[in-house]
């Protein structure tokens, strides 16, 4: 583990577990433990890393992080499960099929054939990085990002799949859209529907 100052108001913690198969669970456990000890802090979960914001002086923070790292047997609780209805009609579906050497039907079957876990929230408010994607579906981002991606677009990039919570620029490959779901609502507590650790399944609404 390495701890770095991150600007003059935060700390960055590299757990050095990039290749660990249980990276998401371990990172989430450390985050939960840190949040318990630093109720005023804003703890951001990354892939095998964390950042801690808003805790003022750094006295003992290292100790707290080390303690949180070693806290074993922490129970994060039963994961919440979501079933999201999806229509696979994205503009990049055929590109993804070509890039992965498979058919559009295979891409759809591989994507909706498994359960995903929310590893982290990033990029946009409420944007959940869902993993693991079937290795056969791993493709890069589009060469040039779109100036606007419609809200609820279902997309893949690298080892992740995700849903755009709001309309925004975006470079992920769009394979479909999700129906009847509000991913981010500032009036809700918590505002993001999908939380790290949640489990997500996509159910075809067009099958």
């Amino acid at each position, binding site marked *: 583990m*390495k*701890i*770095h*100052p*991150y*600007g*003059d*108001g*935060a700390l*960055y913690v*590299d757990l050095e577990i*990039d290749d660990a198969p249980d990276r998401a669970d371990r990172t989430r456990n450390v985050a939960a433990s840190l949040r318990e000890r630093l109720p005023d802090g*804003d*703890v*951001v*979960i*990354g*892939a*095998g*890393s*964390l*950042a801690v*914001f*808003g805790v003022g*002086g*750094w*006295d003992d923070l*290292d100790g707290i992080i080390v303690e949180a790292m070693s806290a074993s047997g922490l129970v994060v609780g039963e994961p919440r499960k979501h079933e999201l209805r999806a229509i696979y009609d994205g503009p990049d579906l055929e590109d993804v099929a070509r890039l992965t050497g498979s058919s559009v039907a295979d891409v759809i079957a591989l994507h909706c054939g498994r359960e995903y876990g929310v590893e*982290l*929230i*990033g*990029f*946009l*408010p*409420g*944007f959940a*990085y869902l993993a693991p994607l079937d290795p056969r579906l791993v493709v*890069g981002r589009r060469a040039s990002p779109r100036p606007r991606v419609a809200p609820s677009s279902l997309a893949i990039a*690298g*080892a992740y799949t995700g849903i755009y*919570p*709001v*309309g*925004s*620029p975006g470079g992920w490959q769009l394979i479909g859209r999700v129906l009847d779901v509000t991913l*981010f609502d*500032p009036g809700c507590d*918590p*505002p*993001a529907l999908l939380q790290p650790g949640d489990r997500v399944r996509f159910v075809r609404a067009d099958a």
Partner: protein
Amino acid sequence: MPELLVLVAPPGATIQDAGRPGWLHAGVPPSGPLDATAHAAANLTVGNDARAAALEVPLGPVRIAAAGELMLSIDGERRVSLRDGAELFVPPCERAVRYVAVAGGFDVPLVLGSRATLAVAALGGFEGRAIRAGDRLPIGLARAAPAPTATPTIGEPGDPAVLQVMPGPHLHRLSPGALEQLLATTWQISPRSDRVGVRLEGAAIARRGDDRAPPVPMVRGAVQVTSDGTPIVLGPDHPVTGGYPVVAVVGRASQAMLARLRAKRAVRFALSEPPSTDRRSR
């Protein structure tokens, strides 16, 4: 209640208070002013709390009219009183961004504890978007007697402007010498810069490894190195996570200075000491 009527506004003018801290874990960037020093100075001059909602105006001119009586300050300059119907023209100046504070502040709804606009997510501010001609912006209740307050200042940037940075956490993902290259180069502000980030031109920082690094937490001021070696200094509306390696992080005071620089201005980076409260020994 009085209103401020927008007659002319440049693209990207938004209402910003001091920002929306505490929601990074939900994917919500900090937002808030590009230049926190000028924002606070403008507010204090009209008797507002330093963190009140003011209008951030990038680059271009703005023309406004008062509906009701208003007292304003631009960037902390001398107060201006506007009678009902009076107009005010705020010309562009050397600085890349200006702040119009009105006594009472802009009375837009609080969203997650803040009035700051996050246009990319249509959140907060005035209808979640940049303001435009024809908008009527509501003004809150002014404090009874605005006391003249000492306003914060930072030195005007030199040429080149020198920004203080700390080493970033991802030097191992960059070529050896990447930080030294950042420090040795005189960079130029790219016109392709906004509240998400300021791009720098002048050299390519040597990368190593592939670009499919998983997302990790980002911070305002982080100097990301993109695939083609371009450094981008993240601004207040930065994505909460990102995959590009962070070579350095610009300190708070230097973030305000950077915000004042127009495209084509020259910048250099200098290493600063880690924060004095940082007592780590490892």
